């Protein structure tokens, strides 16, 4: 670890909302600040990004993510504060921004190289690797305007990662391209991280941020609300979005009382919701009902949740979600989706809900998030989040030499085979534990 890659100190960027572009010109020419109302797209951002870090930027539209990238890239100057950047930046804020649609893939690769100052001879050598990575076949010889958006993205990404940047700024890429290509992008990004490339990644997809980045910052209305590990930040961001949705729904349904304070203290990474109904107790149990934290393959995992009401609420939906150690959401369900009518709660009345599933996970550590919602419409438009506990429970899956699970999740699979040597065809069902009915039930 040498000197940090990017250091932002008190960075703010304001745009004049009333001044005209000619005012801007005169103020630049005479070096006098502008008058007029200022809109602060970014305010007081202080951030140090070490070399080789991968930082995700999350936030809603207009939160200032793109402005921040532009300031780091140097295309926009901060109004106040300083931005110091050490190293060569891949100059593509948006992939393929320098492409010309009338020219072929080859020609655009060539120009893109010149844009970052790679000599023609060197670029000729890399062009093959780029074409290889993009993998768009003969289209590389055709004008870019004939490309599908997926092919365009492939070529653009291929170019961006082959120009040896020290800092790579990526604004929303993984939304395009097929799965195979997305995988290749992700593994290329990881490979670049190993070579100490600093990565700044803007995405609206929380999962992409979690899987690519180790750190993340959460921007809201131009301010830095939270900075931490990618998992933590993304969860905060999602919590924030749900809280906002709650506020909107509570505005519509004015009969609801004021949000309730949290009554029980359950350790969790993050807890949020209106609190009109709350988790009183969350437990993870084995088949026999005893508390358990380690499970082997095929063992029953029971999640027992006790919910307490602070007002009369029907249409309750209780849900859980299993996450792996890297924060990727694996599976889970809601009682609402399973069309189970829960009895509801009222002040002083509690309800216990049990979810049970057979463990089909690969050995490792897992976390469980639980939530209780009020919802009656199938499209979730009247959803109110009452209580959510992220990382409420944790458990581990132990190695089982007799039954290895190589991939994230095992799924019961039928295997049949034919042999030309024998006349008869055999259907063989794998010897596996039968999957039980869902045991979630009321009371």
């Amino acid at each position, binding site marked *: 670890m040498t000197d940090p890659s990017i250091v932002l100190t008190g960075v703010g960027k304001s745009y004049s909302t009333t001044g005209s572009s000619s005012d801007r010109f005169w103020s*630049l020419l005479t070096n006098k600040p502008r008058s007029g109302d200022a809109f602060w797209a970014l305010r007081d951002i202080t951030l140090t990004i070490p070399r080789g870090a991968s930082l995700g930027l999350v936030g809603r539209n207009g939160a200032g993510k793109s402005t921040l990238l532009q300031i780091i890239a140097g295309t926009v100057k901060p109004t106040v504060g300083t931005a110091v950047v050490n190293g060569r930046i891949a*100059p593509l804020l948006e992939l393929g921004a320098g492409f010309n649609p009338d*020219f072929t893939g080859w020609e655009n690769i060539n120009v893109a190289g010149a844009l970052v100052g790679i000599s023609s001879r060197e670029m000729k050598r890399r062009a093959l690797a780029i074409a290889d990575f993009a993998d768009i076949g003969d289209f590389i010889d055709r004008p870019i305007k004939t490309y599908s958006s997926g092919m365009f993205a492939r070529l653009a990404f291929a170019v961006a990662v082959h120009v040896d940047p020290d800092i790579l700024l990526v604004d929303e890429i993984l939304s395009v391209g097929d799965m195979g290509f997305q995988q290749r992008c992700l593994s290329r990004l990881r490979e670049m991280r190993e070579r100490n490339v600093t990565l700044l990644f803007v995405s609206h997809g929380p999962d992409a941020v979690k899987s690519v980045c180790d750190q993340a910052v959460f921007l809201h209305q131009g301010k830095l609300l939270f900075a931490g590990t990618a998992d933590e930040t993304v969860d905060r961001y999602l919590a924030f979005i749900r809280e906002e949705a709650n506020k909107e729904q509570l505005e519509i349904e004015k009969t609801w009382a004021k949000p309730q304070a949290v009554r029980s203290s359950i350790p969790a990474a993050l807890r949020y919701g209106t609190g009109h109904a709350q988790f009183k107790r969350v437990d993870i149990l084995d088949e026999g009902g005893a508390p358990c934290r380690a499970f082997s393959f095929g063992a029953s995992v029971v999640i027992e949740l006790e919910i307490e009401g602070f007002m009369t609420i029907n249409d309750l939906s209780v849900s859980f979600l299993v996450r792996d150690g890297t924060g990727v959401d694996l599976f889970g369900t809601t009682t609402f989706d399973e069309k189970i009518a829960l009895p509801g709660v009222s002040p002083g009345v509690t309800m216990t809900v049990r979810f049970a599933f057979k463990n089909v996970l690969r050995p490792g550590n897992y976390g469980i998030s639980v939530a209780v919602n009020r919802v009656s419409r199938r499209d979730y438009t009247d959803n109110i989040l009452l209580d959510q506990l992220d990382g409420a429970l944790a458990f581990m899956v132990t190695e089982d030499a007799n039954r290895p699970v190589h991939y994230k999740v095992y799924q019961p699979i039928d295997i049949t085979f034919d042999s030309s040597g024998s006349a008869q065809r055999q259907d063989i069902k794998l010897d596996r534990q039968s999957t039980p009915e869902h045991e979630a039930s009321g009371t």
Partner: protein
Amino acid sequence: MNFQFIGDPLRSVYHNKDLVLKLGIRDLAQRFRSSKLGMLWTLIQPVAVVAMFYFVFSVVFENRWRHPDEPRGEFILALFAGFLVYNLFAEIVGRSPTLITGNPNYVKKLVFPLDVLPFVPAVGAVISAGISTLILLVLFVVVRHEMPYGTALLLPILLFPVFLLAIGISWFLSALCTYFKDVPHAVPLILQALVFVSPVLYSMDRVPEGMVRDIMSINPLRVPIELVRGALLDGAMPEWTSFNTNLLAAVVVFFLGYALFDRTRSGFADVL
């Protein structure tokens, strides 16, 4: 006062010479890419323009360039020499309104050396000037039945101030057009007027002596046009004093244009 702006533009262009050449050739190719005649248009365009003016001024108005009894081809040669200079200037400056406003990606989404943008259309303009020169030399042989003068070799030197002037004005106008939306409408008009107030369609001797001629002489295209015409058509050595004055003026415009561009470029992303 710092004088950084004197070294900066030269360093930037030298550093990005590969990029400028590539973008310039791409720019030229793009203009003709989907056309059937392709690069032939760089040949057809100047010939057609000269033919039009020749028709109006020489055929309809029965003008001669110098003597009433000179061959008709003389008028064409003189027109061609004038347009050679004018076109080099106009092709660079004419593109200035869209250099920044037409490439918002370069401003906002790429880390791009914006100050080299005026040089991109200049690549094509210089190539067109070269092609026009070849046509002119062929016409010379056809009209005069003799070999071109050796002074024709001075052409690159004589055109150099025009190039500097055009780049300087292009910096100035491309920045101005980004902030003031009226300027792009004025630029083509001014360029068109410049054909008529420069000695492209006539020689300065035809302009009445006095105030009008004095004012018209200030036009920075006058000296290059007269010197190029002299070198190509009369085999005359340039008058170095007027060349030097013109060059000095062009250098001043070049650096002033850059200074204004550099001063205001940080606001481009805000107003696009």
